[in-house]
């Protein structure tokens, strides 16, 4: 319900208010009413800015005139850290980018390095990667749904999504030893195979989960508060969305069916049948709808992967890049040397620059690596969707009520760890 520009013309009226006739200063009167924009700092210690985001809001009454995100409160110099260690050592650092969905960061980073090193990942590893990435997508969307509903005032959904998310986090714990900071992906494959117990647990979850998605929907789909707060809020047209570089559900909500899983067809995605839900209004509701639909699609993808997956190696065997099998390290000199070289100096990357984007649940997560040879990247740039999306915040929030500001951050699924890096 965005008002036309004519109704809300926010011109600076200060000049007219204070205008004094210089020849007759005695005629000057104080204006009865002075109007100017109110500057309001939101954050960085605000509970609903999803971290330490600060936004300077310019308010005209309750309407947002201009909003300036101030970033960097969570800046940890991750890109600089990458230049310090070997390629391998950076994987745990990627966990701390989007700390809600560490697996995706691992995945995107490993894919970028594999592209740089020109490594083909074995098939089983591709399936495993796809399964875990989609599990992570479910976790990400659940997290978004819960917090977005909470921001709008619907607390129940938060409890239910987090209950189900917990199952998957425990599954991660059993898979790799940590719930959030996973570091499970490796350059050339994955650290550990799925055990039968993990597969059984995952299958059980896949049967359990779709009805739960329906349940979440019951709370929101027809809820009139939800509808009022999401429909027609934070509208962005397809052209604007593209020119702001938005991606993921935020872009697809505006009707652009751009999904790297389809376009680049990496990992096991080309072998799975799935749909990419696309919205049409470009508002928060459409983005909500896409995310919920993607939950169903993820379940579909995981099921297909589990069915199609064959036995096989889970790590590529490129002796100069990938780690040797640990059992050989104890007894065989060649593997021991490989172990020592890779851990102490890293592998020798060819000079060059590569960019590799991966479709994370938030959008396109890309790693741009400049290598000048040697074991450490010369420069690494992380294209994080949260940061790119924050660029459109001013555009998307103009003219909305101040109470909507929080839901507009929310609609991007913003995580400051990734935004500030």
């Amino acid at each position, binding site marked *: 319900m965005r008002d036309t520009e004519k109704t809300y013309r926010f011109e600076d009226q200060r000049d007219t208010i204070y205008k004094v006739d210089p020849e007759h200063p005695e005629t000057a009167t104080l204006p009865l009413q002075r109007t100017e924009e109110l500057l309001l700092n939101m954050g960085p210690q605000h509970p609903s800015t999803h971290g330490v985001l600060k936004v300077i809001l310019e308010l005209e009454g309750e309407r947002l005139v201009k909003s300036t995100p101030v970033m960097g409160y969570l800046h940890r110099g991750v890109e600089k850290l990458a230049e310090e260690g070997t390629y391998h*050592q950076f994987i745990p*650092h990627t966990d701390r980018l989007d700390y809600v969905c560490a697996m995706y960061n691992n995945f995107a980073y490993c894919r970028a390095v594999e592209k740089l090193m020109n490594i083909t990942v074995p098939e089983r590893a591709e399936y495993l990667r796809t399964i875990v990435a989609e599990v992570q997508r479910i976790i990400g969307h659940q997290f978004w749904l819960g917090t977005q509903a909470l921001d709008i005032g619907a607390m129940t959904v938060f409890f239910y999504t987090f209950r189900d998310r917990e199952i998957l986090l425990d599954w991660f*714990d059993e898979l790799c*030893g940590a719930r959030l900071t996973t570091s499970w992906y490796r350059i050339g494959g994955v650290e*550990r195979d799925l055990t039968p117990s993990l597969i059984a647990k995952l299958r059980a979850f896949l049967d359990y989960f779709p009805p739960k998605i329906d*349940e979440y929907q*019951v709370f929101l789909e027809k809820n009139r508060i939800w509808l009022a707060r999401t429909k027609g809020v934070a509208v962005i047209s397809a052209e604007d969305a593209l020119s702001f570089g938005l991606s993921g559900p935020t872009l697809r909500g505006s009707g652009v069916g751009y999904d790297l899983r389809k376009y680049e067809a990496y990992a096991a995605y080309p072998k799975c049948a799935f749909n990419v839900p696309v919205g049409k209004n470009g508002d928060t509701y459409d983005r909500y709808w896409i995310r919920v639909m993607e939950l169903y699609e993820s379940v579909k993808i995981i099921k297909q992967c589990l069915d199609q997956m064959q036995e096989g190696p889970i790590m590529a065997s490129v002796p100069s890049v990938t780690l040797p099998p640990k059992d050989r390290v104890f007894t065989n000199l060649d593997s021991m040397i490989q*172990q020592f070289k890779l851990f102490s100096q890293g592998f020798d990357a060819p000079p060059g620059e590569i960019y590799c984007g991966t479709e994370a649940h938030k959008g396109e997560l890309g790693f741009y690596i400049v290598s000048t040879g040697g074991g450490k990247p010369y420069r690494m740039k992380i294209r994080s969707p949260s940061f790119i999306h924050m660029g459109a915040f001013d555009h998307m929030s103009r003219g909305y009520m101040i109470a909507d500001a929080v839901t507009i951050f929310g609609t991007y699924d913003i995580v400051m760890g990734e935004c500030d890096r």
Partner: protein
Amino acid sequence: MSVVALAKKVWEAALFAEIWSAMKVTFKHMLHKPITFQYPREQRVIPDAHRGALGLLRYDDGKERCVGCDLCEAACPSRCIKVISAEDKSLPLQRYASEFYIDITKCVFCGYCVEACPVNALAMTKMYEFSTHDKRTLLFDKKRLYQIGEQHLEDGKKYLYAHGQEKNDQMYHDYRYFFPQSVKQSTQPPPKHLT
């Protein structure tokens, strides 16, 4: 929109039907057993693969596994490990870690040190309750690390098996790092891979 559909919509709006359907779900959950548990009275079951506190391991005969090769230090992405190696005074020409520190405040629990260790001297245990009022106690020294290793030896071994670092078979029970016999006449039979 047909008249029937419109009428239904108006009827539902008037009755706040969405609230009733949502309340139905909520009420259904009242009959569930709670899924939360009362920590610390109740404890989670921690999987074997869990990456908890690091501990140093010994061989079954009580010898320190660590030979002080510093590879964990090189592998650590947060630079929290410090190994000071030296010659073992009691066993001439053998290298060992005379001091071993892990700054657990810096540790990111990624498990790379364990993955790097060529003698499996390090393992992660299921221990996660080491919060303290004194930050200085979070610099784990060699003694503390061996203590953790001894207390949680089973967990540590399970971790290694779970992550495929070591396998639960005889060879891995036999395996140990052998200094060249030239250093000292070995008192134990040579390992299988040397015969």
